C-alpha cells in the first residue's frame, strides 16, 4: 500500500486500528468458509461511524476496493478480501447505543454480537428474535448483510423483519440515515434494499432493531420416526392443523448417529430414521393443548416415540442433537461442507431423496439437518481435503444438489448468502434480465465497483451505471406537445378491444379532473409488456393502477397519457396450502383472497387501509395497517413477484420459498415504490394458518387523550395483540368527539381466552373505562371503520414521533384542522384520527376541505410548518392524500444530495425513459433524515 495512504489511515484510526504487516494479515485471509484464502491489502478497525466514513472516503480517493467484515462467521465467503481489497472490520464498533424497553427498540453499532443484544434486552423481558445458530459470535452487521435467519424464524421471520433503520456509509464515504423507528421515510425502502445486500452496497455502521417480548411459555417435543418421509408427513400434518410452531427442525439418521457417538450424545435412539424437534411458544395458557395437538400429529404420522421437555434442562437436551450437529459431524471427518438451499416445504421428501441419490452417485457421505418448517435444507457433505479427487466430487455433488433444489421450485441459498461461493449458481435461478437489474442496482450504490468486489453476481455481470432518467425532459414533452399521439389509436391491433376503456368507462380510474385518460386492462403480464413497450416507443406516460381508488392521490404532476390497471388480472396462479404460499395475480382483491384462503383455514394477516384493495396496490404502496406491528408489512409477507420494468423488461424477483437470500432483494425495493419502478403482475404471498378464534375488545372514551395510556399498555403487553388501534372521529360541528380503542386477539380458543383475561386486567388497571367485547358483526364494523378512515377524505396524513413525544404528536394532529386562511380567519375543520400500537404514529384525515384559489398556498404552508415542528421533535409528517394544488407545493422530485441521487438512480435502473410517474418526496427532506431513537 502506498506509504501516504497508510499514514493517512493510521491518522484516522490510530495505531491499534490499522494492520498492514503481511504476517499479521494472515489471520484475516479466511472467514467461516476455509476453502478460500485471500490476503487483504490491509485491515482497518474503525470505532464509529465518523471514523468508518473517513476511512471509506480516503480509500475512495485512491480507488482502493474494500470489504466489510463482521465476525467472519459467514459460510459463503462474503467477508473475504477479494480483489486485493482492504478489510474494514466492525470488531471495535461493539457498543449498544440505546435500548428503549417501552418502545421495544434498540440501536446498536454494527459490530455488536447478536447474542449480546439479546442478553442486554433480557432484564426487560425482551429479546432480539432472529437467532442464527452462530448467534453467540456473529454480528448484527453481518446479520443485516446476510439477512440471516435461524431455527425460530418460522414464526418470527428473518432479520429484515426486525430492522427498522440503518446508519449507512456509501462506498464514497458519505453517511446516510436510512429509515428509523417511528418515521415514514419518504421514497423507496432503502433499509429493505440494504438488508441482504451482502456488504456489496456499502458499510452499515449502526442498526436500529425492534425487540420482542420473551414468550411466557415454551413447549418442546422430540418425535422419533423410522424414516424421513414420516417426519415430513408429521410436519405437514402440524401445519395443516393450524398450529404455528416457532421451530420445526429435522435431523436425519446419519446425523443422529454422529451426535450419539460424540461427547454431545443426547440420548436419541441410534436406530431412528429421523428425529423432529417441535417447539411452540407464547402465552402459557393453551400451550399444553397445542403441544398435545402436535404430539397427536406426530403419532398419526407414525412416530415411534414422542418425548416432551418438562424443564429447561430437558428442553436443552432435546435440542442438543440439533444444536450440536455441526460440531459433532465435524469430528467424524476431517472436513465438512455445510450446504444451504431452500425448496417449497412439500417438496422436501422428494428433494431429500435426490440428495441421497447424489451422495451415492459421487460416493460421498451426506448428512442432513434442516429447518423442516420452511424447507431450508443444510446437507452436510463430509470429505477430506487432502484427497483432491474427493474434493472435486464434492464440487460436482454440490452443484447437482443446487440444481435439484432449483428444479423443485426452490433457490440456492436460504440463509448463508451467495458470497463468493455460489456466484456461479446464480445463473441457475436468475435470468439475464434479472442479473442485469441486480448489477445496475448495485452500481447505483457503488458506481466504481469498489465495495466487496467479486461477490454475489457472477463474473462479468457487475454492470456500469445506466443512463439517468431524464424525467424533466419527458414531462416537458408531455406539456409542450399539445396532442401527444392518441394512445387509443396507438393501441389499435396490439390488444383485443375489450381491454381498453375510455370516457365514462374510464371514470373510476380518473383522479386528475378533466376528461379521464384511457384505461388499459390487460389479462396477463404479456399484454402489459406489449403496452409498456408501445408506450416507450410513443413516449406516452403511463400510470399504474389496481382498482384506481388511490390513483393520483400522490401525484402532483399532470394526468398520464394512459392508465394501466391490473383489475382484470385476478387469477390464482399457484396454491399449495402445505407450503403456506400462494401466487396470485396482482389484480386480486384482498377480500377475494381472504375468501379463497378461508376455505383452507389459512390467511394473509394484513389489513391495510382503503377499499377495493388489490394485492398489487398493497404491495406497491407497502402500507401494512393495524396488524403490521404483529405480523410484518407487505415487505415481509410478499415472498416474490413478477414485474415489468418501465422499459418493458419482464422479470421475477424473490421466489416461492420463505427463506431466500439469493441475489439482491428486488422485492423489497418494489414494495412501497408506488408504481414508479415497475408494473407488478403477480405476487407470491407468505400465508399463515387461520387462527381458530378472533376477538376484539373495545374501550370507549371521550377523546384520544383519555385512552392514550390504554393504547400503550395494550401494545406493550407481553401477549402482543394482533392489532391495537385507537380511533377518534369528530362530529361535523367539530366540537363533540368520540374515541374508541380496539384490541384484537387471535389464536387458539384457549389462548385467546387467557389473553382476553390478561388484557382486560391491564386495561382496567389503567382505569381506561368499561372493557367490552365486540360481537362478530360489530368487530367487522370497527375494523372496517379503521380501514376506511381516509376514504372519501380530502386530506390524509401520517404523523409520527418518538414515544417520548406523544403529546407533541397529538398536539400536531389536533392542529391539522386549525388553520388561518388568507383573511387570517380561523378555519376549524373536524379531523378523524387513528393511532396504532406503540402510540408513535397517527393517521389524520380531514373531510370537506374546500381549497379555493389561494387557500392551497396557506394549507401548504400550514402543513410545512407542522412537518418542521414534528421534525424538530424527531418525528415526521407524510402526506398520503391531498388535493393536487397542495401536493404540488409540498412535493418535489427527489432532491439533490446522496439520498436523492440514490433514489433517482434506482428509478433510472427500472424506468430509464421515465414513462412511469416520477418519484416525489417532501420538499424539505433533509439530507440526513433519520433516526427515531435518540443517539447518545
Amino acid at each position, binding site marked *: 500500500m502506498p506509504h501516504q495512504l497508510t499514514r493517512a489511515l493510521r491518522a484516522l484510526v490510530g495505531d491499534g486500528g490499522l494492520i498492514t504487516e503481511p504476517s499479521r494479515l494472515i489471520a484475516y485471509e479466511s472467514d467461516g468458509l476455509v476453502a478460500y484464502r485471500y490476503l487483504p491489502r490491509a*485491515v482497518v478497525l474503525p470505532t464509529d461511524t465518523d471514523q468508518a466514513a473517513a476511512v471509506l472516503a480516503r480509500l475512495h480517493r485512491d480507488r482502493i476496493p474494500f470489504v466489510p467484515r463482521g465476525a467472519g462467521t459467514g459460510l459463503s465467503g462474503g467477508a473475504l478480501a477479494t480483489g486485493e481489497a482492504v478489510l474494514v472490520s466492525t470488531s471495535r464498533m461493539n457498543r449498544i447505543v440505546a435500548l428503549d424497553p417501552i418502545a421495544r427498540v434498540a440501536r446498536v453499532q454494527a459490530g455488536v454480537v447478536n447474542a449480546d443484544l439479546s442478553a442486554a434486552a433480557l432484564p426487560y423481558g425482551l429479546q432480539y428474535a432472529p437467532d442464527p445458530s452462530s448467534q453467540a459470535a456473529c454480528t448484527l452487521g453481518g446479520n443485516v448483510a446476510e439477512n440471516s435467519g435461524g431455527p425460530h424464524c418460522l414464526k418470527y421471520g428473518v432479520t429484515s423483519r426486525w430492522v427498522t433503520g440503518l446508519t449507512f456509509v456509501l462506498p464514497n464515504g458519505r453517511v446516510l440515515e436510512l429509515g428509523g423507528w417511528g418515521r415514514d421515510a419518504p421514497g423507496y425502502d432503502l433499509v429493505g434494499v440494504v438488508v441482504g445486500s451482502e456488504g456489496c452496497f456499502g458499510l452499515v455502521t449502526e442498526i436500529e432493531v425492534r425487540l420482542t417480548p420473551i414468550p411466557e411459555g415454551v413447549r418442546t417435543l422430540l418425535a422419533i420416526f423410522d424414516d424421513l418421509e414420516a417426519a415430513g408427513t408429521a410436519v405437514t400434518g402440524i401445519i395443516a392443523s393450524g398450529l404455528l410452531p416457532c421451530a420445526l427442525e429435522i435431523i436425519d439418521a446419519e446425523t443422529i448417529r454422529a451426535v450419539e457417538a460424540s461427547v454431545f450424545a443426547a440420548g436419541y435412539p441410534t436406530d431412528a430414521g429421523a428425529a423432529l424437534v417441535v417447539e411452540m411458544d407464547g402465552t402459557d395458557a393453551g400451550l399444553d393443548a397445542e403441544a398435545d395437538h402436535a404430539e397427536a400429529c406426530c403419532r398419526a404420522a407414525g412416530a415411534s416415540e414422542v418425548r416432551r421437555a418438562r424443564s429447561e434442562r430437558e428442553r436443552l437436551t432435546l435440542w442438543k442433537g440439533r444444536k450440536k450437529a455441526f460440531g459433532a459431524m465435524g469430528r467424524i471427518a476431517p472436513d465438512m461442507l455445510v450446504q444451504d438451499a431452500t425448496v417449497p416445504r412439500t417438496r422436501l421428501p422428494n428433494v431429500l431423496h435426490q440428495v441421497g441419490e447424489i451422495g451415492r452417485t459421487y460416493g460421498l457421505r451426506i448428512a442432513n439437518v434442516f429447518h423442516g418448517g420452511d424447507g431450508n435444507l443444510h446437507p452436510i457433505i463430509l470429505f477430506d481435503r487432502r484427497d483432491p479427487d474427493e474434493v472435486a466430487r464434492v464440487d460436482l455433488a454440490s452443484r447437482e444438489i443446487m440444481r435439484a433444489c432449483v428444479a423443485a421450485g426452490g433457490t440456492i441459498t436460504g440463509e448463508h448468502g451467495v458470497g463468493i461461493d455460489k456466484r456461479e449458481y446464480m445463473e441457475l435461478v436468475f435470468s439475464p434480465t434479472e442479473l442485469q437489474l441486480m448489477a445496475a442496482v448495485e452500481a447505483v450504490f457503488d458506481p466504481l465497483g469498489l465495495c466487496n468486489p467479486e461477490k454475489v453476481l457472477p463474473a462479468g455481470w457487475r454492470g456500469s451505471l445506466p443512463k439517468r432518467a431524464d424525467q424533466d425532459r419527458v414531462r416537458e414533452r408531455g406539456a409542450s406537445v399539445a396532442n401527444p399521439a392518441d394512445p387509443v389509436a396507438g393501441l389499435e391491433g396490439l390488444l383485443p378491444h375489450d381491454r381498453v376503456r375510455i370516457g365514462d368507462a374510464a371514470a373510476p380510474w380518473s383522479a386528475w379532473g378533466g376528461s379521464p385518460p384511457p384505461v388499459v386492462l390487460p389479462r396477463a403480464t404479456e399484454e402489459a409488456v406489449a403496452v409498456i413497450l408501445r408506450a416507450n416507443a410513443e413516449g406516452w406516460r403511463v400510470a399504474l393502477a389496481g382498482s384506481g381508488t388511490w390513483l393520483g392521490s400522490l401525484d402532483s404532476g399532470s394526468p398520464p397519457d394512459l392508465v394501466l390497471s391490473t383489475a382484470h388480472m385476478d387469477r390464482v396462479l399457484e396454491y399449495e396450502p402445505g407450503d403456506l404460499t400462494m401466487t396470485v395475480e396482482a389484480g386480486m382483491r384482498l377480500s377475494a383472497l381472504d375468501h379463497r384462503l378461508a376455505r383452507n383455514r389459512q390467511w394473509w394477516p394484513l389489513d391495510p387501509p382503503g377499499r377495493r384493495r388489490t394485492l398489487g396496490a398493497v404491495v406497491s404502496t407497502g402500507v401494512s395497517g393495524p396488524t403490521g406491528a404483529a405480523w410484518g408489512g407487505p415487505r415481509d409477507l410478499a415472498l416474490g413477484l413478477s414485474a415489468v420494468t418501465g422499459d418493458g423488461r419482464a422479470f421475477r424477483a424473490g421466489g416461492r420459498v420463505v427463506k431466500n437470500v439469493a441475489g439482491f432483494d428486488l422485492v423489497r425495493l418494489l414494495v412501497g415504490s408506488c408504481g414508479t419502478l415497475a408494473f407488478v403482475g403477480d405476487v407470491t404471498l407468505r400465508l399463515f394458518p387461520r387462527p381458530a378464534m378472533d376477538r376484539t375488545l373495545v374501550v370507549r372514551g371521550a377523546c384520544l387523550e383519555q385512552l392514550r395510556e390504554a393504547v400503550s399498555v395494550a401494545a406493550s403487553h407481553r401477549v402482543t395483540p394482533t392489532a391495537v388501534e385507537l380511533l377518534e372521529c369528530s362530529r361535523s360541528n367539530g366540537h363533540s368527539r368520540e374515541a374508541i380503542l380496539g384490541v384484537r386477539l387471535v389464536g387458539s380458543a384457549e389462548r385467546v381466552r387467557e389473553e382476553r383475561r390478561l388484557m382486560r386486567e391491564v386495561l382496567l388497571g389503567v382505569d381506561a373505562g368499561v372493557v367490552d367485547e365486540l360481537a362478530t358483526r360489530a368487530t367487522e364494523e370497527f375494523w372496517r371503520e379503521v380501514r376506511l378512515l381516509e376514504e372519501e377524505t380530502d386530506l390524509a396524513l401520517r404523523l409520527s414521533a418518538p414515544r417520548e413525544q406523544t403529546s407533541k404528536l397529538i398536539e400536531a394532529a389536533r392542529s391539522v384542522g386549525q388553520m388561518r386562511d388568507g383573511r387570517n380567519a380561523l378555519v376549524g375543520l373536524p379531523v378523524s384520527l387513528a393511532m396504532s400500537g406503540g402510540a408513535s404514529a397517527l393517521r389524520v384525515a380531514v373531510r370537506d376541505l374546500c381549497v379555493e384559489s389561494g387557500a392551497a398556498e396557506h394549507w401548504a404552508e400550514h402543513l410545512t410548518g407542522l412537518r418542521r415542528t414534528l421534525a424538530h421533535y424527531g418525528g415526521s409528517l407524510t402526506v398520503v392524500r391531498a388535493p393536487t394544488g397542495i401536493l404540488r407545493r409540498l412535493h418535489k422530485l427527489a432532491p439533490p444530495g446522496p439520498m436523492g441521487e440514490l433514489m433517482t438512480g434506482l428509478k433510472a435502473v427500472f424506468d430509464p425513459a421515465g414513462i412511469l410517474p416520477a418519484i416525489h418526496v417532501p420538499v424539505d427532506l433533509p439530507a440526513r433524515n433519520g433516526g427515531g431513537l435518540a443517539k447518545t
Partner: protein
Amino acid sequence: MSLAEKAPTHLEGGPRPGDALKFEVDKLLTCVHCGFCLPACPTYRLLGDENDSPRGRLHLMRAVAEGRLDPATPAFQLHLDRCLGCRACETVCPSGVRYGELLEVARDEVARAGGMRWSVRAMLGLFARPAATRAAMAVARAVRATGLPALMARLLPSWRWMAGLRLASGMLAASARWPGLRETGRHLEESGEDTVAPLGRGHVLERASGGGTDGSADAPSERVGLFLGCVQQGLFGHVNEATARVLTVNDLRTMDVPGQVCCGALHVHGGDLETARALARANVDAFTAAGAEMVIVNAAGCGAVMKEYDLLLEHDPVYAERARAFAASVRDLSEVLAGRGLCRGAPLSLTITTDAPCHLLHAQGVAQTPAKMLDAVPGLRVVMLRGAEECCGGAGIYGVTHPDLGGQIGADKVAAVIATDADVVVTPNPGCVMQIGAGLATERVRTRTLQPVEILDESYRQAGRYQ
C-alpha cells in the same frame, strides 16, 4: 536427583523452527474457523484484532506449521504473548480444539526462536529452583509483614512505573490472611442435616474438548497427597494449613510428600517446556515415592497443568506411562469436597460472591464446585457475580508482563465485584486472589478476596470441629 539430571537428552540439538507445530497439524486442523470463540476471548474483545483472538492465533500457528510464517516473526510472538492462556475459547469451541495444548507448543516455538523476554526468563528461572523460590517468598513475606504494601496499594498514583509498583504491592498485600474472618460468626442455632448432599456429575462442563474428572469417584481416605505449590505455600501457607484441616474433618488425612516442586505452570505458559517437563518428572517421582493414590490441589492454576502432565510427557519414553497415571489421580480440592457428603460447619454472617478461575472452569472443565463446597456453611448470603466465567487478567505472570492489557481486563472484573457489594469474593486460585485483591485495594473498597477453603475452615473452627 537434581532437576538438571532429570532434563532429557533425547532432544539434543532441538528441532528446526516450526517443527513442533508441524507435529500438531492434526490438532490444528480440527479448527473449522467458525469464529464461535471470538466473543469469549478477553483480548479480542478488548483489542478487536483477530490476531488477538483464538481463531487468529490458531491460524498463525497453522501458518507456521505450513511453513508460511517464521516463528521468529515479531508478530507471531506478540500475539501469542498477549494470550492470557485462560482457555475460555476451549469451553465454547464446538469442534473441540485443544487450544491450551497448542498454545504451549507454539510458545515453545517462540522461546526456541529466541523470543522470550528477559523478565520472563528470570522469573521462570527463579521458580525452577526450589531453594531460590523459598528464599524469595520469605523476603516477600517479610515485606508484607511491614504493612507497607497495603499502604502503597492505596496511596500510590497510577502513573508510569508507579502503577506497576502499586499493582505489585496490592498483590502482595492481598495474599495476607484476613483476621476479620474470625469476627464473622453469628452463633445461630445450627439446623438441618449434619452433612450436605454430594454433587453428582453436574459440575463437569459439557464441551467438545472434554470435561473435568469426576471428583465424586471413590476417594481413598488414606494415601492422599496434598500439593503445596510454590506461591500457595510461600505466601498462602495459611490456606494450605486450612486445606489440611478441612480434609481431615471430612475423613481425608493428607500425607507428607517431600521432594515436591513447582508445578511448572508458569514454564508451560511461558514456553519453557523443557524446564516444565523436568519439574513434572520431579513431582511424579515425589508423589509416587510417597505412595499417594490421589493428588489434591487447591490452586486451580497448578491443578490445571498437573492434570495435563500426561500430555506434557507424552513423548517421554520413561515417564509417559507414569505421567498418565499421575494426571488421572489429580483432583481439585473443590471437586473432592463437593463430591463428598460434606460436614456442615457453624453459620457465618457474610455476603459472598464466587469467581471462577479460568484454570478451573476452562482448563479443567470444572464448574460450580467451589460454590457447592460452601453449601456446608450455613448463613452465607450468596450473590451472583456478573461475568464470573471471564478471566480476571491475572493469568499467571500476565499482570506483570502485560500490565496495561491485564489491568484493563482486570478492571472489568473488579467493577463486577464492586457491583455485588459483597463482603468477600472467593476464588480458589492464589493468582486470582492477588490480582482481584490488588484491584479492590487500589479502588479502596472493603471487599476482601479469599480462597473458599478459608471460609469453610473458619466455619469448622467455630463449630468446634477442631477441638
